[in-house]
């Protein structure tokens, strides 16, 4: 069981980093809904501008559903439990800038395509992102997962800076992926 001093340390760290809401553990649709509602209530209580609330909420939903969808895609693999339990999302603000910062384990094999799509998205300006979004929205949906492959593009469109990500190799099988989005 955690010691009193560790709890205090965690709280100090949360405060230093400007974190308002954090969740670590298995992401489910209902957890995403509950956190989303809590986030919206928090931002409304702070009387943020409406489009600011809308963008933060949108990014939060896309980012967490991306992780959730990734977990679901691994449901029948041996790495499922390890991946599903590795997820964390934090929402905070530092010096007037809001951020949604998430992390999760991925299979090292999946690192390359993820890097490629993030790198590509980061080369595009807002108009190009809009064009890509509209083009991909017209393309066929993945019927099995319901995934549209639009999440990262939408996040990039609403973000105020390029997507800040890292992929750190843990071993041959797993890498840790983090994504920090400023808005």
């Amino acid at each position: 069981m955690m010691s009193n001093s560790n709890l205090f340390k965690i709280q100090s760290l949360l405060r230093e980093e400007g974190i308002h809401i954090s969740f670590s553990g298995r992401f489910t649709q209902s957890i995403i809904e509950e956190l989303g509602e809590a986030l919206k209530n928090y931002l409304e209580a702070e009387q943020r501008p409406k489009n600011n609330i809308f963008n933060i909420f949108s990014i939060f939903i896309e980012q967490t559903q991306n992780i959730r969808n990734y977990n679901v895609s691994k449901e029948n693999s041996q790495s499922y439990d390890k991946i599903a339990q590795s997820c964390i999302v934090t929402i905070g603000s530092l010096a007037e800038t809001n951020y949604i910062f998430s992390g999760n384990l991925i299979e090292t094999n999946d690192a390359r395509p993820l890097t490629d799509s993030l790198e590509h998205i980061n080369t595009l300006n807002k108009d190009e992102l809009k064009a890509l979004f509209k083009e991909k929205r017209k393309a066929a949906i993945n019927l099995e997962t319901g995934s549209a492959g639009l999440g990262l593009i939408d996040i990039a469109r609403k973000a105020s800076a390029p997507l800040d990500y890292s992929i750190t190799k843990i071993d041959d099988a797993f890498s840790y992926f983090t994504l920090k989005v400023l808005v």
Partner: protein
Amino acid sequence: MKGFMIESSKSTPEVTFDPDNHFIYIKGQSYPENAYKFYEPLFQWVDHYFEELKNEFNVTINFELSYINTSSSKCLMMLLDKFEEAHCAGKSLTLNWYCDLENESEVECAEEFLEDLTLPKYILQRVD
């Protein structure tokens, strides 16, 4: 033809398809775990409805969606394509898209949905 109704949940909108009054209404937030699963029965209903619909009736479609995630957005686009097809086939439809006009992100999202459609469409202020 029978109507179609779904009550809203945290992540899915309320849906009312009323064939007697030629009224289609979707209201709420849309970010279910699997958007296609949620929208598939709506696609089927709409296809069936337009097959039977006579050209002299006017169909009113009201969308009032405060939040749409990307996979729902794709499904809504598929629904709008069906409306556009019906319009091009000579059916009479009007699409009212209600949003918060003070929220520029929401208005932009509405405009992007509607900009390629030729059927009569309006962006109007949502009343909460």
